């Protein structure tokens, strides 16, 4: 069963067309890595899925339903398809615990007491329990991203979109975030990950998508994509990575 279906998605900024007809099907529990060079439209694709960018044309079906019509529907979709950003985007005016419970309290109207309990459990699962009353500005990048992942998990989402989650981190902090994502992958949640961490993508993904100039250029099993790409642009892009590997 496809949890997410993207049909002929186009997105333009003025005259510049960033997405030129993307087609993608995601089944439940699948972990997909989206790779590609800068400007290929990977992030835009991800941001179109939860309507942070409004698509120019095309269809996005979440569980066979189109959510684009009203603000209410879009909010409803976003509470089920949450996102983790490159720049963390933790709320600077709230401490870690408050960051976690704001959305479920206001959007899902859940009981605050239960939420606090759940927040501690979730923080524990990302190893941030001891930081519950710290402000975001007192955390390191890796800690911030782990809190951001916990915050996304608090909504009980069906899909989590990761938009270059480790790109803004110091190399030594990348590991702690990837570890959290690895353990998250085992829980069976659907994940779409835009990343430059090739080895991570290779190890974790069920499917790898290579995007080039606004379309899904090549996709498939990570083994095939990384070891035996068929198309010339994919080969060229992965050559650098394979050389370093």
């Amino acid at each position, binding site marked *: 069963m496809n949890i997410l279906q993207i049909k002929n998605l186009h997105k333009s900024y003025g005259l510049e067309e960033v997405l030129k007809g993307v087609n993608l099907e995601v089944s439940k529990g699948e972990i997909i890595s989206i790779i590609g060079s800068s400007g290929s439209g990977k992030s835009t694709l991800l941001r179109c899925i939860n309507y942070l960018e409004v698509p120019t044309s095309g269809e996005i079906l979440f569980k066979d339903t189109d959510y684009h019509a009203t603000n209410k529907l879009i909010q409803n979709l976003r509470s089920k398809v949450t996102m983790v950003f490159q720049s963390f985007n933790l709320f600077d005016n709230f401490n870690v615990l408050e960051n976690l419970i*704001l959305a479920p309290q206001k959007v899902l109207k859940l009981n605050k007491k239960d939420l606090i309990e759940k927040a501690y459990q979730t923080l524990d699962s990302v190893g941030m329990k001891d930081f519950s009353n710290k402000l975001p500005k007192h955390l390191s990048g890796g800690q911030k991203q782990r809190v951001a992942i916990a915050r996304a998990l608090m909504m009980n989402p069906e899909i989590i979109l990761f938009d270059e989650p480790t790109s803004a981190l110091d190399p030594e902090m990348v590991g702690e975030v990837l570890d959290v994502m690895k353990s998250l992958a085992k829980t069976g949640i659907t994940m779409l990950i835009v990343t430059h961490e090739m080895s991570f993508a290779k190890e974790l993904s069920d499917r790898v998508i290579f995007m080039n100039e606004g379309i899904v250029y090549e996709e498939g099993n990570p083994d095939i994509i990384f070891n035996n790409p068929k198309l010339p642009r994919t080969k060229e892009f992965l050559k650098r990575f394979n050389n370093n590997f």
Partner: protein
Amino acid sequence: MRKVFKKVILFTLVFGIIIVIFPKTNAEYINNATTENETLNDAIENVKFYSSFNYQTLTQDKLNKLTADFYLPVEYFGVSISYVIDSEYLALSQETEIINLRQGTSTIEKEVLKVTVLNLPNIIKGEQEFVIQATFNYLEKSFTYNYQGFITPVIPDDFLGGALYTLVRYGKMFLEGAGLTLLISLIGTVLGFILALFLATAKIIAPTPQDKALGRFLKIFFNKLSSTYITIFRGTPMIVQASFFWYGFGLFGNALLCGLFVVSLNTAAYIAEIIRGSVNTIDKGQTEGSLALGLSYSQTFIFVIFPQAIKNSMPAIGNEFVINIKDTAVLSVIGIFELFNQTKKITSLHYRQLEAYAIVALIYLILTYSITSILKLIEKRMGMKPLELTSSN
């Protein structure tokens, strides 16, 4: 004088008739005694002291603010008067002298005793009460009466003395003015801030493609309304706004309330722009982070953006309070006795503009400097970047 003459003539006439008609009896003696008392009472009530300046009559008002020598008459229509003064500031001469009093075009001579002012009390001591004890003697009867007055310090001619005099003598008026200035500025800033929240919100909220026709219309309407308001209040001087609302409408029928109203409205326009600017500087990621979790635009605004924007704009709002302390001086135009208007009132009392305005400048400086320092301290405690005092409206 004429009244007294009339009385005396009438008195003599009646007296004469009584003497002619009635033989001398005991009853007549009692009558006689009454007239003696009346004469004495008359003397007590009507005796006049004369100032050394042009020999003008010293009224009670002038006696209460005495600064120069004066004369005491030794006789009042046959009633002789003797005096005792017990004051370290005044000395009564033993010798009588003759002064010429103006009476219409002619002058009349008057025998008087001179009272010399030995020295004036200093401004710290302030006014000193003195008592002139006068004894009236008439036909073997005598009456004692106390005249009270105050000897007042005079304003020194030099700047420092004048400033000290102004400060001590009118310190209370300065304080009242400063209090009112602070009150108006503070309340005006607080009310202005509350109003600014609505103005800024109206100006920031933009219609989205998903809005329905009515929502779209309302958003655009309030947006334009807020923009117009801000343009008008930032584009006209507060002195004009104050005059417009007070002299044009007599708003609230109370100048102070009207002034508070004007300061609040004016401040709101400035603070609204501060908050709007502050909202624009909040990282776009904050909005995205919130929206991506399913929060609505308004929830994002209320819980995430606005609290941060307001915290960041606190230094600028504090600065607006300091600016208001200076700018409320224009409210003097609608007759509110805040600090500046109190100073104008003081100068009209003693005509020493230089000293009065130097003092008020210093008071304003102390107010703004100390409040700026306090605000800086608070900002430092709260971990905000302190703002320098910027230009006024």
